[in-house]
């Protein structure tokens, strides 16, 4: 109850509520633009948050995430081009409904489901973050090392089919993470006596480059996306009777969204597709899926908005981001000197409860702004792509330069953009790079400090029960992915040999 009072006083005395509304509006626009994922929409805003109050800055970023997860469904439904990866599942039934002239209804279902998923996710976030953070207080060096390893083990499951590429990208991230001051000896590593590098390569710059700049470069080589022919579409909210029919699929979406949001590495798109499949499995009318089923929109849209809230749980309690978007949010926290973990709740209760309050405002605002922003969002999606991309590039550069007035920062962004572009070209996944970069220091510093504690005795890693449990979890994760990959490869091989035999006959 004390938390409610704190949240209320923060919302009434700071511009956080305004930031929540602005973030949702920007998120919807960014999410609606194909190519601008929630993480890119957040990365574009990040430089402008440097001089804000911490609470407003973080609410702005988190609200952008919320808005973008809904915004992505607009082009998914209207032009069959998902604005975000997580909206890809929505485009299956959403576009079918639009073809049947029920596009407004589809958008209404998406909006209501997004708000529902967000609210349920928020309740989970509020009730579970603090207990988890208290648990984090008993995390010692070996436990943090094991947590970092568990975070990295996600790489194995991500890039199915190209585990090698995932590992290569991860190693690049780990290598970049070694630049800066050595955590134990204090010696400068690869800093070339440059004071800008004493604190390491700021991973925000790398993320903006790898996500945003490389996306702009690759968009330049792609044809124009389709334009919405009917810009006059209006949102039609489902009636209570129709909404009740969606409860089951929304429940499935919320459950899966909550689970996937908390799990590192999963994120919105996996949650969306999983809940689409589950909603079909448990539906009374599974035959309608793929032919314009409202449930096929409700489930994934509930799931990806639930993820947008619950993905904050591991970030706030352990400082471990599970996805690109939350990695950027972590960057935003660090910029303002807010170190996630158990102390955050003791030292900055106004911030934590203000953030929860801001997210509640964002989810409510999503409902109103979702309807208001539809026409401008469609208008923007229908502008010529070159103009849009040029504007976004200008936004990136002016934003980055305004942080430190530093050309060095711009070069880092450009170089990361080039690396990101090459990675796209050769099919390397990004998340391993980001995880390596963000977790590399954590793993190295805690590994070495754990050994410092024991005078070089490695037994410390399995004598601590938390560390042992996490390391086993990481091993199970890697093994399961390896088994799955092997099965898939065998299935492919069998299919190929069968095809060859058929040809031979």
């Amino acid at each position, binding site marked *: 109850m004390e938390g409610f009072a704190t949240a209320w006083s923060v919302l009434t005395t700071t511009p956080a509520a305004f930031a929540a509304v602005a973030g949702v509006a920007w998120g919807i626009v960014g999410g609606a633009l194909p190519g601008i994922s929630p993480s890119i929409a957040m990365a574009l805003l990040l430089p402008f948050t440097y001089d804000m109050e911490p609470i407003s800055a973080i609410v702005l970023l988190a609200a952008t995430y919320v808005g973008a997860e809904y915004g992505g469904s607009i082009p998914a439904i209207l032009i069959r081009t998902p604005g975000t990866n997580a909206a890809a599942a929505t485009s299956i039934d959403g576009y079918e409904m639009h073809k049947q002239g029920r596009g407004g209804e589809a958008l209404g279902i998406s909006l209501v489901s997004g708000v529902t998923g967000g609210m349920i996710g928020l309740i989970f976030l509020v009730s579970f973050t603090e207990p988890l953070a208290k648990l984090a207080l008993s995390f010692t060096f070996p436990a943090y090392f094991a947590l970092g390893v568990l975070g990295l083990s996600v790489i194995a499951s991500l890039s199915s089919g190209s585990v090698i590429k995932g590992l290569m990208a991860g190693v690049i991230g780990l290598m970049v993470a070694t630049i800066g001051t050595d955590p*134990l000896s204090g010696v400068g590593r690869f800093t070339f*006596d440059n*004071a800008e590098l004493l604190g390491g390569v700021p991973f925000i710059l790398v993320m903006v480059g790898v996500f945003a700049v490389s996306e702009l470069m690759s968009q330049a080589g792609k044809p124009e996306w389709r334009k919405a022919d009917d810009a006059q579409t209006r949102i039609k909210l489902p009636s209570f009777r129709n909404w009740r029919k969606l409860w089951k699929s929304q429940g499935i979406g919320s459950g899966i969204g909550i689970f996937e949001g908390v799990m590192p590495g999963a994120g919105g798109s996996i949650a969306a597709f999983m809940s689409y499949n589950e909603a079909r499995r448990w539906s009374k009318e599974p035959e309608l899926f793929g032919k314009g089923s409202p449930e096929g929109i409700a489930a994934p849209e509930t799931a990806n908005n639930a993820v947008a809230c619950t993905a904050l749980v591991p970030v706030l309690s352990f400082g471990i981001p599970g996805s690109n978007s939350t990695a950027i949010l972590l960057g935003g926290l660090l910029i303002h*000197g807010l170190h996630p973990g158990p*102390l955050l709740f003791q030292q900055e209760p106004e911030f934590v409860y203000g953030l929860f309050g801001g997210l509640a405002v964002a989810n409510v605002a999503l409902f109103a702004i979702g309807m208001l922003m539809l026409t401008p969002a469609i208008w923007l999606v229908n502008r010529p792509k070159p103009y849009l991309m040029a504007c976004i590039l200008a936004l990136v550069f002016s934003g980055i330069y305004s942080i430190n007035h530093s050309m060095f920062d711009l070069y880092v962004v450009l170089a990361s953009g080039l690396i990101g572009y090459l990675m796209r070209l050769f099919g390397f996944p990004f998340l391993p790079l980001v995880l390596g970069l963000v977790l590399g220091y954590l793993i190295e510093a805690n590994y070495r400090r754990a050994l410092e*504690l024991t005078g070089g005795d490695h037994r410390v890693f399995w004598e601590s029960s938390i560390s042992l449990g996490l390391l086993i979890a990481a091993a199970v994760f890697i093994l399961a992915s390896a088994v799955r990959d092997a099965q898939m490869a065998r299935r492919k091989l069998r299919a190929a040999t069968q095809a060859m035999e058929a040809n031979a006959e």
Partner: protein
Amino acid sequence: MRFGFGKITLAAAVAAGFLASTNAPVAAQEYPHSTVTLVTHSSPGGGTDVFLREMVGFLGKAMGPTFIVENVKGGSGAKAMAKLASSPTDGSIFYGTTPTYINTSLLSKLDADYTSLEGVANVFMDPQTVFVRADSPFQSISDVVAASKANPDSVLFGVTTPGSLDRQVMEKFKKMTGVTSRVITHDGGGDLLISVLNGTVSAAIGELQELSPQIAAGEIRIITTYTAERLATLPDVPTAREQGIDMVVNKFRGIAGPRGVSDEIKAAWSTGIQKVLEDPDFKAWYSAQSLVPAFMPAAEYDQFLNDFAVDQKAFLIEYGIIK
């Protein structure tokens, strides 16, 4: 290897003397600028930023001009030093000092480093303290020394970063008392606090400002302060000196300008800082923050900063952090 802590103590004593005999020859003179910029490398809300922003209101009253605080972040102070080095020496722009800018100068090769700047006046010292978890058996640093001597592996010391002032203090403490327990470095004050709370390290060095929420919550205790006298806010906590460890550590907070500021300007600052330290409202604020007023005039402060840099460099070389 020599340390300058004795000298720092001396400086503080001299400063106290200065405070007692407030001589103000240029108090009546007008300050030559209507606006004065104070640069800090700390981000909005950071320690130095808060200190400067709190002080400027009182400085304006005491000295006349309007003071504004500008945050020049980046490169741990390198950007701010570069800005100061290329600024006019006419008294329109100054820098809020902390040990960080000297450390950055020593750790990297810069075009503009701490030698491009000149001490104008010192304002405060942040007291460094030794703290333990509330349920720790240690009541004073003498207990820690005894336990460590009995079994060096039973005690672990915690400090923030490897090149920090508190690591230097801890290493010097080990040398003075002859204890050999290991020193564990961290990424910053927050991490160190967690290590103390979950029992990873037995005793650590920290600043009161950062620790106050946990002290108020009864989760940690201060067992010793590295100050010349007991702190007014912690009258029951003994100093290290009382326990036979003759070491006084002071993390300075003051004002520096581009090298070549005129004597008149320095004198104006001298008077101004002494005035704000006497202001009852400002006094209420800094006493609550456990900041110890430690005014030093320009010549003395500049010498103090140079001595500090020499000691810091010797420490960094001895522990292999720089060559």
